[in-house]
């Protein structure tokens, strides 16, 4: 019961924040709402017994992505003002989004989902995850590939952002 209340509070919070992100006219407010939405979802991760994911969520999304977007909107004040002007409500878009949401909701209720969660997080699950990331029989290659992806990005972004 307690958990359900917590879930509902933060789910509604995250959802309202998400809707604000796409509707609020001022771009700086949109960034703040985005951070709030990420924060709300991070709380749900705690509820899902994944403090690690909650930490990562705050680290990467709130601390990384959202701050990055915020900095960019400070840097590009002109662009931010433009964005302000261009927020429009679009009926076709909302109809598409709503119908797809209803489809997904129907699908969620239709499919046989497990009723009970797995056992609570065992001690040392973090070590298990770490081991899986460097295990040749686990996810070593994807983990390494993340590094390659970020390298490409770094080099490319530097080139694009370079003054000439």
């Amino acid at each position, binding site marked *: 019961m307690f958990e359900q209340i917590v879930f509902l509070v933060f789910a509604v919070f995250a959802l309202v924040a998400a809707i604000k992100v796409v509707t609020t006219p001022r771009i700086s407010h949109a960034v703040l709402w985005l951070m709030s939405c990420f924060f709300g979802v991070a709380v749900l991760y705690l509820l899902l017994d994944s403090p690690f994911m909650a930490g990562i969520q705050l680290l990467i999304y709130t601390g990384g992505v959202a701050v990055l977007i915020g900095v960019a909107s400070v840097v590009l004040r002109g662009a931010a003002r433009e964005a302000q002007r261009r927020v429009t409500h679009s009926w076709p878009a909302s109809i598409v989004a709503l119908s797809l949401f209803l489809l997904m909701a129907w699908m969620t209720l239709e499919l*046989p989902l497990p009723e009970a969660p797995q056992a609570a997080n065992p001690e040392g699950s973090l070590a298990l995850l770490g081991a899986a990331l460097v295990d040749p029989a686990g996810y*070593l*290659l994807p983990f390494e590939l993340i590094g390659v992806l970020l390298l490409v*990005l770094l080099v490319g972004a530097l080139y694009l952002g370079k003054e000439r």
Partner: protein
Amino acid sequence: MLISDYLYLAPVLSLLAGALLILLLDLLADREQMGRWGWKAALASGLLALGSTFLLGDAPVRVLNVLAYDVFTAYVWRLLLGALVLLILLGESYVRSHTDEPGLFYALLMFFAAGALLVAASTNTMMLLLAVELLSIAGTLLVGFLHADRRATQGAIRCLVYGSAMTAVMALGFSWFYGLTGTTDYALTSEALSGLWGSSPAPVIRPIALVPVLAFVLVGLVVKTGSAPFHHWLPGASDVSGGFVGASAPVAASLAILPKVAGFAALVRLTLVMLPEALDLHIVWRWPLVGILAVAAMLWGSLLGLRQHNIKRLMAFSGIAQLGYVLIGVVLATEAGLSALLVALTAYVLAEMGTFTAIAVVSQKMPLDLVSDYRGLYRRAPLLALGLLLFILSLFGMPGTAGFIGKLWLFTETFRAGYIGLLILAALSSVISLGYYGRVVRAGFMDSDAGMAPVPVPAAASVVLIAMMVGVLVLGIFPNTWLRWAQAAAQVFFASG
């Protein structure tokens, strides 16, 4: 075990090593030197990668738990790497004259190709997602590479926005597969799905409920790798969102070839390894989902191709129609259908490679890329005109060319499998395509060249052109070895039963 796994990654690793080497050289050398050495380093690593695929043997191997190396992978990798080598040759003069960072361009191209190789071989949804993302980020950067050109940056932005949205959609689909099965491995997913389905008398899942998930995965993958019509009609994309118009010719050729081949390989693996064949799921996936996509691609590509005056866009639409035919191979999902798919795909790569070479050469002289720029080409540049004719004939499917073999086999198999409607639509689209192919040929061979200057053909471009022409003809006339090889590649998925 670990070392031998990395041995099977040798082609990917040599591309990555090449890229890093070029980046390092870029730090030490100035622009002149990079212009001279960059493409040689890239070519060397491409050839090394291509060569290493011939040393790996034929036995199917599971590489680091997330990739599969087998004859199919080998076939696709060689196709990709062959195209890469030619792309480097083709881009050389263009890159040297159009950018101040040639080293970076080749490094990105190497990363791009490495991403394509990994997409083609992955057997794990998260690996596939990541590899596709590597491919698309490197691709986006390539599109935006020519900085002075605002169109290039705009094209890159469009690429990024649609690409990211499609990544999200695909990831959503994969997250559901993971949720239903608790694994991301294709084969294990297949087992788990069979378990959900088969054991009890009544299936636990109605297949209809999973259609959205299947559709997300399909649309995401196909749009992301650009092998379907969507990347043309997404909002605001009167320009081609894949960046064809914004992109320079070598980049456009890379985008037209590498991700699509890789995407097809991934699609085939998804179809035949991840979705258990006995279940309705497999059937829903092939028809209607992939089937509708194939029909849409064929008709859309052909009909819109008719209206184009820009040759790059015309070829882009024609490419879409071509890939619509190739998608039929996925709909069939039989051993013969799959071999036919590989053959048609190879023919597509050859013809497309050649056409883009010709376009790149003309584009150096006349950057507007209008069909009317090709008036009287056979007098201004006979080699170009001949090549263009041959490639267009192959794309259309004239007997004696590689394209004919692929199309014939595909259509025969379609007939044999009983998809008569599909066959009729494919034939119809083929006929429509005559309209725009004819226009290019008429411009090149019949219209007068009054007031048009001759077009000089650089040495590298003529090498690529001649190689492609020989390829198209040889494979069209003596296709036996090639066909046997394609069959061997297709057998991988059917050998065990």
